[in-house]
């Protein structure tokens, strides 16, 4: 069964206001930017995003006031491109809630969803104010410790728990997939396999989409099995201006244009420049229905 659809339809069908989303990639690498831009075009509100290390994806949603809560270990561009200033301003103004995690606690919270348990024990998070300030961490005594009652003098082992995060939707930009969603990622996978198992639904945006049986790679090379996938969207360049291993590197000028935006008008025009390319494929082929014809 083909799950192909256009980007507009995928966002309409799979995202509603208030959803918890999770995205592929890490920092400036392989974020599903075309999908994030479509969230902006469709003005999806009060979104939450869970990701170990986010950058432009979260910053763009904050710029348009569409973000409610960010669950992340790190939100920033790397060295040369500076801080995620829209995110930062939105948190400082009290418009966005920053639920700071250690990157590993995001991973553990998603593992909780994978295994369908309400929380996960996490070793390592032992000290500091993150435990005090956040209600998604809790420290308990190891319930299996036997010596506690028998030897009151012994110190009981303490275990930190992190509350499970169950994303409504994972959006993963892959290099290739077939029309049923069997997807292949080249190079670094970051947390993509984990999020594909943790989320209630999965949308793949892909550089290349082929017919069923035409991946020509062998089953063991498929990173995300199609039965986990709800929709497939063909979006060449769908991570730009972020990088996509083997296809393109970070688009320096495009990214700088965003970082230098000063007004809503600048921001809208930046998103607009991608609109034709982002929406160029619908359903089974190229969009020829009025929006564009090649």
């Amino acid at each position, binding site marked *: 069964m083909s799950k192909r659809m256009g980007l507009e339809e995928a966002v309409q069908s799979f995202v509603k206001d208030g959803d918890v989303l999770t995205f592929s990639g890490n920092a400036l690498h392989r974020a599903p930017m075309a999908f994030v831009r479509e969230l902006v075009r469709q003005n999806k509100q009060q979104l939450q995003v869970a990701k170990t290390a986010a950058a432009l994806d979260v910053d763009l949603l904050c710029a348009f006031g569409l973000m409610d809560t960010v669950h992340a270990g790190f939100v920033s561009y790397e*060295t040369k491109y500076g801080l995620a200033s829209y995110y930062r301003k939105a948190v*400082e103004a009290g418009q966005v809630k920053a639920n700071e995690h250690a990157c590993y606690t995001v991973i553990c919270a998603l593992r909780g969803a994978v295994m369908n348990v309400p929380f996960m024990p996490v*070793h390592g998070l032992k000290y500091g*104010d993150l435990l005090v300030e956040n209600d998604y961490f809790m420290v308990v005594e190891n319930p299996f410790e036997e010596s506690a009652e028998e030897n009151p003098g012994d110190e009981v082992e303490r275990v930190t728990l992190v509350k499970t995060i169950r994303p409504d939707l994972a959006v993963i930009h892959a290099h290739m997939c077939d029309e049923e969603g069997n997807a292949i990622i080249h190079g670094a996978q970051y947390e993509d396999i984990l999020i594909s198992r943790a989320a209630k639904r999965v949308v793949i945006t892909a550089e290349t989409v082929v017919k069923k049986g035409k991946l020509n790679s062998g089953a063991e090379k498929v990173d995300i099995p199609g039965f986990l996938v709800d929709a497939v969207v063909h979006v060449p360049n769908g991570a730009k201006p972020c990088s996509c291993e083997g296809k393109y590197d970070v688009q320096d000028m495009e990214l700088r244009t965003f970082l230098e935006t000063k007004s809503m008008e600048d921001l809208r025009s930046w998103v607009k420049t991608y609109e034709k390319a982002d929406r160029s494929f619908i359903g089974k082929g190229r969009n020829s229905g009025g929006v564009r014809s090649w």
Partner: protein
Amino acid sequence: MVMYEGNVHSTNKEWQISDLMTCVIARLLKDRETVFHGVSSHLPMVAMQLAKQLHAPNLVHLNIPGGVNPTSLRETTYSSAGPDLLRSAESSFSLAEVFDLSMRGKLDVAFLGGIQFDVKGNVNASTIGPYKKPKVRLPGGAGSAVLIPTAKKAIIWRTKHDRRTFVEDVDFVTTRGNLWKIVTPLCVFGYRDGRLMLDAIHPNTTVEEVQENTGFKLQYDHIEYTKAPTREEMGVLRRVDPKNVRSLEF
């Protein structure tokens, strides 16, 4: 008071402060250690390659994209978490697996950042002002809060050394734990007996200058000068990092 702003230029022509910091960090690493760095970590990434070329050929370089022992940094530019590190690696070991490794006590060294550090060894990478209504929202500690307590040795590097960075009490304790060294453009702090001690100062500075730029009273057993980069170190450094990404943060 002169605020030290992390000037990349030293007073000599043979090396820059970034070169010195890279060499000082490389010398802290031992052969066969498992060592991890994260995002925005160009300087320690180069230091690891330098150590591998000099005294630690079997050091295990771990990173976010999962590239074990990348053989080259020639394709590395704006990112220390990019897929290029996997492209030239010998095997793959994901970020989640690196964290798990550290939880099992098998990560020897973790490189971590931070914005504010206090005399008691607390690290702040989260907020200036209250956590829930911050004056400044910082990027966040990334892996620090689980790695500093579990890695055998946590090394912090910071390219700024001033009174806003090194304070009596941090605004927010993102984490603390097995902090081992903090390397700055002026000096090396060691963490011993629950407090930061001045281990060594760089040849480009004085104890007075370090004190002027530090928000707590310096304590030290005796003062050593760090050794300037040797000709051999500089030669290898230029070869492993021809694009000078180690200076990106300055």
